[in-house]
């Protein structure tokens, strides 16, 4: 049972600086990738069987996959190893601070959602209307499915693991809405496999609204569960921000 000492506890602040640093880094990363994509897609990215394609795009693919795997294991592993083993005893101020951190993760998740699901996705739409495809590894696919979506998965999984290792409400139980929100991007990868198989074997058109792409739509709808997650988090934050009724002398 946590004993509350209202006189001494200081309310937490939002980690704006850390959030700003992470967002700045990600925007620079996605921006630099985008610049590279603009500079090399229509010059050396049109023909998979050219040596330049292997140099400029396939090497990038291999390197980014390795880096993403290392980053994923590092972040998620760190969060699990450093989990709070006495989470039910944290003070309410610490709990509120951790909710601020969780929302920080979710903000980063949202920024990447916009970049990957809007900007990078429609780059693929534009690309395919110009060039059709020669293989499943096009510059826009390498950028979207092997950089954008994995980054999305890394941040989403980190948010999920953070919540379930550091917040009392999430201790020893699973938030189904948050699990659904994270499951969507994860399942995009196997659906990508099905999609590329379809385009390779029987679906030569590249209309974005074609039925072969509807699996992606369904997985995108997993984000509707974000509402349920917000309800879970905000309900607890409302409790944590309730004024203490028993000591009115503390209120201004």
């Amino acid at each position: 049972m946590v004993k509350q000492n209202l006189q001494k506890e200081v309310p937490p602040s939002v980690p704006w600086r850390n959030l700003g640093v992470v967002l700045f880094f990600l925007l620079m990363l996605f921006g630099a990738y985008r610049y590279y994509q603009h500079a090399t897609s229509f010059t050396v990215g049109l023909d998979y069987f050219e040596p330049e394609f292997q140099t400029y795009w396939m090497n990038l693919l291999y390197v980014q996959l390795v880096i993403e795997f290392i980053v994923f294991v590092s972040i998620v592993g760190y969060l699990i190893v450093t989990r709070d083993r006495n989470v039910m005893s944290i003070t309410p101020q610490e709990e509120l601070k951790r909710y601020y951190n969780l929302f920080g993760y979710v903000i980063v998740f949202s920024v990447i959602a916009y970049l990957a699901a809007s900007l990078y996705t429609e780059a693929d739409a534009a690309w395919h209307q110009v060039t059709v495809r020669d293989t499943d590894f096009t510059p826009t696919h390498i950028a979207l499915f092997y950089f954008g979506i994995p980054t999305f998965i890394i941040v989403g999984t980190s948010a999920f693991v953070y919540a379930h290792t550091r917040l009392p409400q999430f201790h020893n139980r699973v938030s189904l809405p948050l699990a659904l929100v994270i499951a969507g991007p994860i399942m995009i990868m196997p659906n990508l496999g099905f999609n590329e198989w379809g385009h390779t074997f029987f679906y030569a058109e590249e209309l974005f609204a074609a039925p072969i792409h509807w699996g992606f739509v369904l997985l995108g709808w997993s984000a509707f569960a974000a509402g349920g997650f917000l309800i879970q988090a905000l309900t607890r934050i409302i409790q944590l921000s309730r004024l203490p009724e028993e000591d009115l002398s503390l209120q201004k």
Partner: protein
Amino acid sequence: MTSEKELIDREDLTAVMTLDQQRSVFKNIDLMVIPLIVLLFAGIFSFHFALTVGDWDYWVDWRDRRWWPLVTPLSLIVLPSVFGYLLWTRLRLPLAGTVSIISLALAAWVSRVMNFEVFAGFPLNMVSPSTFIALGLILDCVLLLTRSFFFTGFFGAFLFALLIYPLNWPLMAPFRVPVEYNGILVTVADLMGYEYIRTAMPEYVRIIEHSTLRTFGEAVTPLTAVFAGFLGILSYFFWTWIGHVASKAVWIKRIF
């Protein structure tokens, strides 16, 4: 295992002592949640819109009288319905249509310029997005005035789907001007399409003006609009129910 009692015991704990501290928490949450919602809407809606409407809205020559006025509002009504349930029942904010469609519009404009014009080289007036914000406003206003999902579905969703064509008519009219091209009557939009060949150009792929009664008097477009309106009503009720399901705060013991 965490007991329910431990969680209930924690419900009485509070992190604030004064009114100023409480207000500070509310302000911090607003500053975090509002951008988060706008970005999530922009991402989800863009993705959903791209993969359901897609080429119908990407190209000015794909905005026909049959498919575009039918597919587009049915796709657009999804997020306003889903999140409208959450925002209205929990926060009494009739904002889902407006906020979600404005988020989509911002994301769409950035994408059309960056991807279609700068990256792929299409002219901007060929790939500019249609306008939809007024539709979201209408839906939200009906909800605000009637305070009822029932009447919003019947009137708001009907108007939402019905009005997409007249709303965009001023934007599309210049591209509907007829021209003669090699002895064939085409529109300016068609001519732009012939100049900018895409993989979606062949007639068997381009799903525009496909129907039987193409010369159904002058009622082609109004007929499609009214049909879209009725389907919009059904869609609104279905997706509002999905919003009800998706906004439940469900906890489970384990995933595997």
